């Protein structure tokens, strides 16, 4: 099989993942999109491992590592989503803006007022 097929497939998976991360509002769908990106990368790793006929199979080993880490990441991520939902009754990513920079109308931050003149 030509190397282009799996590579193009991986690129498409990654692109779908990027789109999901950037555009979906639902946090669980964002997590799933992250999984898509990771698996796109995994596909690349395995593909090139075969293509280069690496005796050490380092690409496959790396892919296994990524799978394990992805599982852990999803566990932590889902736990966070669960807690956010319990606290705020929403998991829409773009409504979680507690950490935004608060500015006055003239563009200066409020802590300026505390500085000596």
């Amino acid at each position, binding site marked *: 099989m030509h190397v282009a097929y799996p590579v193009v497939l991986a690129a498409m998976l990654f692109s779908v993942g990027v789109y999901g991360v950037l555009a979906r509002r639902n946090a669980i769908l964002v997590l799933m999109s992250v999984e898509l990106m990771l698996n796109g990368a995994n596909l690349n790793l395995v593909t090139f491992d075969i293509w280069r006929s690496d005796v050490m199979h380092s690409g496959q080993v790396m892919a296994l590592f990524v799978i394990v880490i992805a599982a852990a990441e999803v566990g932590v991520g889902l736990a966070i989503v669960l807690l956010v939902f319990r606290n705020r009754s929403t998991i829409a*990513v773009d409504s979680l803006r507690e950490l*935004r*920079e608060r500015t006055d109308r003239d563009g200066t931050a409020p802590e300026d007022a505390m500085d000596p003149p």
Partner: protein
Amino acid sequence: MTTLAALVILAPFAAAWIGMLGGRRVPLGPGGVAVIGTAASTVMALVVLAGVAGDASHVRESSIQLTPTGSIPITVGVRVDGLSASVALMVTVVALAVQVYSIGYLRGDARYSSYAAFVSLFTAAMLLVVFSGDLIVLYVGWEIMGVCSYFLIGHHWEDPGATAAAIKAFLMTRVGDVGFLFGIFVLGSAANSFRVSDVLAAVPRMSSGELLAGTLLLALGVVAKSAQFPLHSWLPDAMAAPTPISALIHAATMVAAGVYVVALLHPVFLAASFTLDLLAVLAAISTLGSALAAFAADDIKRVLAYSTISQLGLMFVGLAVDADRVPSVALLLSHAAYKALLFLCAGALIHAVGSNLMADMGGMRHAMPVTFVTMTIGFAALVGVPPTSGFVAKDAIVGAAWDAVRHRGAAPVGLGPSLVGLVCALLTVAVTAAYSTRAWLLTFFGPVRNDAVSHDAPPVMSIPLIVLAVPTLLLGLAAVGAHQLRPELLPATVSLALIALGVGVAYRLWRGVPVRDPAIVLGRSRNAVRTAFYTDDLYERTVAVMTRRLAAGVSVVDDNVLGRAVSRTGRGARQLGGILRLSENGNVQAYLTGVLLGAVVIAVCAAMLS
């Protein structure tokens, strides 16, 4: 020999460290540590001098090789010859006398432990100046002395006068130190080495410009350190220090360092005749002017302080008019003995009377016989009465000036400066006799003005007096062997006649019922003379006013230009940052879009550029 000389420096240095770290808790007490360190140093200095005595002009040198830095190398080393060995012995003996005396003088003083440690450090710094084989290392000792004098003059820092005197001494000598450091740089770069021996050897190769610049800059430092006109006024003010410190500063360390450096680098100065002319004239002005000021002063310590300036002036005149440094070094050594003696005697008087003013003393010869006899010996040496050490040394300088005027061309300086030097030296001999007689009469004779004094100084204070009186008397006899110091008939006769004149005039003015202060002869001009001809007022009105104005201007610039620039920069940065803040809207997906765009841009750039 050189190892022993290094130990001479290190012994008081170690004592200073132990004293500083241990404070009052060290075994034997702070005084014991300081005395042991200085005494060890004295013994070793004696051995060093005995070792080099056979061949005084031979230079023994050793140094540690430091890692080369690419520029002119700085060596840490010791250089021993007859000059440095004898000066080192003088320093250690005076320092030892001062340390022993201080145990009695500062009994019960709350800060005695740090005082004793600083005196040890001061001694070590002076010994470093004396024995250093490298001009940069010499400068290190020179600066340590500056800072020690600051701390010791300001020992009684509760008194605002003492603090002001300490700052004044520090600042005035600092003015000269800048010149001194750059003088070392000029000479060092001209000789391509900072070692004293190399610099002296390179004198014939140096251009006249290098010699002139180097010696003039060095002379600035020397004039400030040795308190010569026009940078003399810190020394009389330094009388705010405890009296043993005055003895140390005036006799062994600090002011002696200036004369020592000129004597050490005498061949360099001899090659720069303009510097010698200038030095001779400045020294002549200092020696006569401060002798007159000593005649008018009311405070016994100020009398001695002005007399120090005057004697140091004589030494510089001697170094300028004579191609041989022996007479001036002889005066340096004998001056150290008798000036330390005089200050310690004055300290005993002040300790007993509780006042510095001679008006509060009088008739003290009955109550304090030991002080009377030793101080009389000191005054006799200061005046230059024949068998004492002062006579031999001073006469050699007057004789050298006499020769310089007579055989013009043979002397290193021109006729004008040597004539000024001779006239001022002769007048100073007369005035010195007058002011010494005045101080002697006012303190020890006349009616008893203080009945409370009924006892002499305690033994711990009087023994150093007796010990110092011996060299004051006998150093002159030891010097008879040196042909440079043999008195010449005519100058010796003239100066003896002038001494007799000075003593006679002072006695005549004093005698009468009731006894009078001989200074009344000055009449209305007394105040002018007492303040050394208003030099301090002059500085107050010119230098101090200009400095204050400059400081005010600098503070305005600091507030309005620098401060405003800093605060405006801060505000501007914050406002610029405000624009960037607009993007921080809390939407994580917007941030991630930015990250992705950045990654794409970097990837495209990398692809295009590779």
